């Protein structure tokens, strides 16, 4: 009763007060917003315009893209790598996130520090480190040969295997962090309850743990998949020229072939796919927040 009264009595003043508050709230955002508009939105729009205006107005750039088996293969590679990286980061990241959530203080802090530190290390340094590890005479191939498991070096670099390994490593923290937040929000007593209800460990995992962490997995997977779709440095360094990804193709079209029209078309195709995936995610999981 009192609440209703209070609301009605303040209602006439509410709009002006809230719009003032909103205006005050927006003021600090303006510089960042301006930066995004001038540095991101406008150049992207310019590129998109060139995709339908160069060399002459029309959709010929898109027709060319979808008519070329080479470009479609690049698109396929992009999805294959992004999909594989997403699946592998879920499989590797889940146990880590779970351990971070339940391990005693020291061990979880240590593991957390390792995850964060790897994120803070320079991306190029980390990718070159993988080149050292994965090359024909690298530690991995040498060790396997010395152990007698293989007779010749495995082709781990300059192909999609190398790209997938390197990107999985780079993307892992983006899976672990949201997943860890979701797992930590679950009251561990529900697992005791599940056990007494008769659920085996596997049943408790599939019927309680997975549904309760689905939103975290979805949030992490979206982040990893979308970031992987447009990733450039790691595919450029660890991948081969015969198995290009879309970002590499766009760079090559712009830098070597100066075909801004086709590059713009490829960029718009990538952006459209990304937005479509994001919308699907929103439809099923809201804003990636845990359902409670």
């Amino acid at each position, binding site marked *: 009763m009192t609440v209703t009264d209070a609301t009605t009595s303040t209602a006439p003043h509410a709009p002006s007060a809230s719009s003032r508050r909103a205006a005050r709230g927006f003021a600090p955002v303006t510089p960042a917003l301006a930066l995004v508009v001038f540095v991101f939105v406008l150049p992207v729009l310019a590129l998109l315009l060139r995709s339908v205006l160069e060399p002459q107005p029309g959709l010929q750039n898109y027709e060319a893209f979808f008519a070329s088996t080479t470009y479609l293969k690049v698109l396929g590679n992009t999805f294959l790598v992004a999909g594989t990286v997403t699946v592998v980061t879920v499989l590797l990241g889940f146990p880590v996130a779970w351990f971070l959530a339940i391990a005693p203080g020291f061990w979880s802090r240590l593991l957390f520090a390792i995850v964060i530190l790897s994120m803070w290390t320079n991306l190029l340094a980390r990718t070159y480190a993988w080149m050292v590890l994965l090359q024909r005479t690298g530690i991995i191939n040498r060790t396997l040969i010395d152990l007698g498991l293989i007779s010749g070096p495995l082709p781990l670099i300059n192909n999609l295997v190398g790209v997938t390994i390197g990107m999985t490593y780079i993307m892992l923290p983006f899976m672990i962090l949201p997943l860890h937040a979701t797992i930590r929000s679950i*009251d561990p*007593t*529900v697992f*005791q*309850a*599940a*056990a*007494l*209800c*008769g*659920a*085996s460990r596997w*049943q408790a995992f599939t*019927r*309680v743990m997975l*549904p*309760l962490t689905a939103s975290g997995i979805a949030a992490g997977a979206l982040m990893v998949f979308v970031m992987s779709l447009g990733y450039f440095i790691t595919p450029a360094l660890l991948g081969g020229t015969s198995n290009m990804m879309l970002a590499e193709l766009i760079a090559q079209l712009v830098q070597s072939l100066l075909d801004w029209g086709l590059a713009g078309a490829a960029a718009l195709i990538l952006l459209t796919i990304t937005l479509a995936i994001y919308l699907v995610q929103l439809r099923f999981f809201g804003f990636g927040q845990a*359902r*409670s």
Partner: protein
Amino acid sequence: MTFLDIRGVSKSFGNVAAVSDVSLEIARGEFMTFLGPSGSGKSTTLYMIAGFFEPTGGDIRLDGRSILAEPSNRRNIGMVFQRYTLFPHLSVAENVAFPLRVRRRSGAEVSRKVEEMLALVRLERFADRMPAQLSGGQQQRVALARALAYDPPLLLMDEPLSALDKKLREEIQAEIRRIHRETGVTILYVTHDQEEALSLSDRVALFNHGRIEQVGKGRDLYDAPHTRFVAGFVGHSNFLDCTIAARRDVRADIVFPDGSGCADIPLHAAASSGTAARLMIRPDRLQLAAPVPAAGPGIDTTLSDATFIGETFHFAVTTGWGAQVNVRLPAGAPMAHEPVIGERVRLSWNAADARLFAD
């Protein structure tokens, strides 16, 4: 006859003994309550029965078979937790169905049983709600339905009402009593609330420092406490400092600090003459009268406070040596003379109502 047999069970965490040598036999269909202050080992004992902790010593037998080697999910025990532990992603009906689904029961059996259980806790209309849409009391009733859905022979309840307000608590206590009568399930109930323990259970085991101080009907714990801890924890009590003057078997004569004395008090300790002790009397077993010499045991006191609170009068009297004693008299009881504050009054009791504990 014994259904749940707890034999000399101990549990230590590192060097800290949480439960030491607890033994208890519980009959089929009994409502047993573990009562005690926090940290007394009552919940730890319950968790060992549930399989969340492994005892460091002793054995737990259910229906003649040791259950210690079985993991929690094979013990077929029901449990209602202190916190709301419904699965947040499942509806009320699916929460109740969960234990049946993991047991791979047929769809028809699951829906029949869910219906039966929701009727038992009177939440049929809430079947399709999500746990977050229920009040705390409703959530605990769903938890109760979920714990009983697979007809476990033993139901554990770990302070299930502690998060609820008083009125709701009393309501659900009545529900629990009714469900116990209707299902005949053996219940092991943990609480730190003595009123809850006394009103719900057939028997109460009072825990203190990881041991059971006394097991018995609520009435026994109240009327015949074996230790000073039991006397202090169950019900209200007055403790009066005194010295044992002479001892004969299980009875003793005592002397109060002002030199007055009492004879023939039942004694529950191995105390010899001359040692300090405490006399315990319940506030509702005391009488107040004008200060005339009387036959029974009693002491002369001064009335220091009087409060009328509806059904009872609360009096506080001060003894000759400065100790305060609380007295509760039913307001309807005839009182020859209503004393005023500062007046001398004779405090008396029946010899059988006093208990003597060594210090």
